[in-house]
């Protein structure tokens, strides 16, 4: 007993020295709660902090998890969806602007109703109302009276800016027009700033400004 205990005593003594009080107190506490429930009474706050102290690992882990989940969710909804939406939208937006512009400026007397309905399907908002009125008042009578055939084509198109649900596209358009008085096609070149808005997942033209 003599030799070993002496060694153990020295070791444990030095252990206690290094980790001063904690192990002692912890020992006393656990023994108290295990052996007698009466010990719980006197200091409930201390036992709570102690219990928290003993479970700091899971608490910290949950804290880190909640923080990283919050950060990820915040970034996703506040930033990534918008970034991702506008990054992928460019080509779709250009196509929508080009097709819409061509539909808007191409018509013939024989297929006027179809042409105008087709054009309307590319438009939205106030511009849709404006065009509907304009088409009925001016395009239909003029096309019928003068036998106007108009064919538009897109020469070049590029995005000015693209947000997640609005966009502007610069479109270079050529329109060839023939009429009863001028059977030879007349070429008109124009540059148009086309504004678009995303409505129910589709990009529609909301403004059309020749510049």
């Amino acid at each position, binding site marked *: 007993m003599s030799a070993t205990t002496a060694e153990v005593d020295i070791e444990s003594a030095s252990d206690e020295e290094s980790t001063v009080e904690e192990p002692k107190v912890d020992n006393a506490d656990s023994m108290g709660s295990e052996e007698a429930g009466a010990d719980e009474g006197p200091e409930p706050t201390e036992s709570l902090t102690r219990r928290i102290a003993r479970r700091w690992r899971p608490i910290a882990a949950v804290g880190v998890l909640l923080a990283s989940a919050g950060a990820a969710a915040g970034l996703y909804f506040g930033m990534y969806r918008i*970034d991702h939406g506008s990054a992928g939208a460019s080509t779709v937006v250009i196509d929508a602007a080009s097709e819409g512009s061509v539909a808007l400026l191409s018509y013939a007397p024989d297929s006027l109703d179809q042409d105008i309905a087709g054009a309307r399907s590319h438009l939205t908002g106030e511009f849709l109302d404006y065009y509907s009125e304009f088409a009925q008042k001016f395009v239909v009578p003029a096309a019928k009276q003068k036998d106007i055939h108009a064919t538009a084509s897109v020469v070049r198109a590029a995005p000015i800016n693209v947000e997640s649900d609005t966009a502007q596209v610069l479109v270079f358009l050529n329109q060839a027009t023939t009429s009863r008085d001028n059977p030879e096609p007349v070429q008109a070149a124009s540059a148009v700033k086309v504004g678009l808005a995303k409505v129910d997942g589709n990009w529609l033209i909301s403004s059309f400004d020749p510049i």
Partner: protein
Amino acid sequence: MRLLSRSDQETETAMLDEADDLDSQQDGTDDQPPVVDEKRRRRPKLATVLVAVAILLSGVLLAASGYMLWFHRQTDHEQQRRAEFAAAASQAAVTLMSIDSATAQDNVRQIIDNSTGQFKDDIQSSAEDLVKAAQDSKATTKATVRASAVQSMDADSAVVLVSSATTVSNSAGPNQQPRNWRLSVTMVRDGEQIKMSKVEFVP
């Protein structure tokens, strides 16, 4: 300590085991199954699993956050470059198309300064004629850009569509009807500056 606990003193081994057990519990490892209480044994085990899962999930979420931040920087950077190229092309178009007969020499020099590659060579070789024609015209042409948009872009060049208008005024008539132009301009990064390397009038 373990070697010591193998000594023949039973009481002492028990004491030592208990001490060891307490130590190991504080370290979060439970390789020494305590004989006494099962509840005390099971609790840290569940906690350990939960902690591991939480740490793993946190890692995945942080990686996702990192990716989203990277993506944001990337899109930001691209948008900035787009804006840079568009602005440079607009400026270059204005410089190219604004010519004052009084300052023709300077105008042409500016155009050359803003150009690079084949286009620069072309302008340089015809500089004298250009200056002379501008001086003879006795007119001032002012250009404005109505819109510009980057059609395509790579690391250090871009094709930019520019819609511009010019108004000519001379001694005879004041301002005439503005004339519209559709340009396709190729811009190339040349050191610090972005310069014009090709101009095409879109028919």
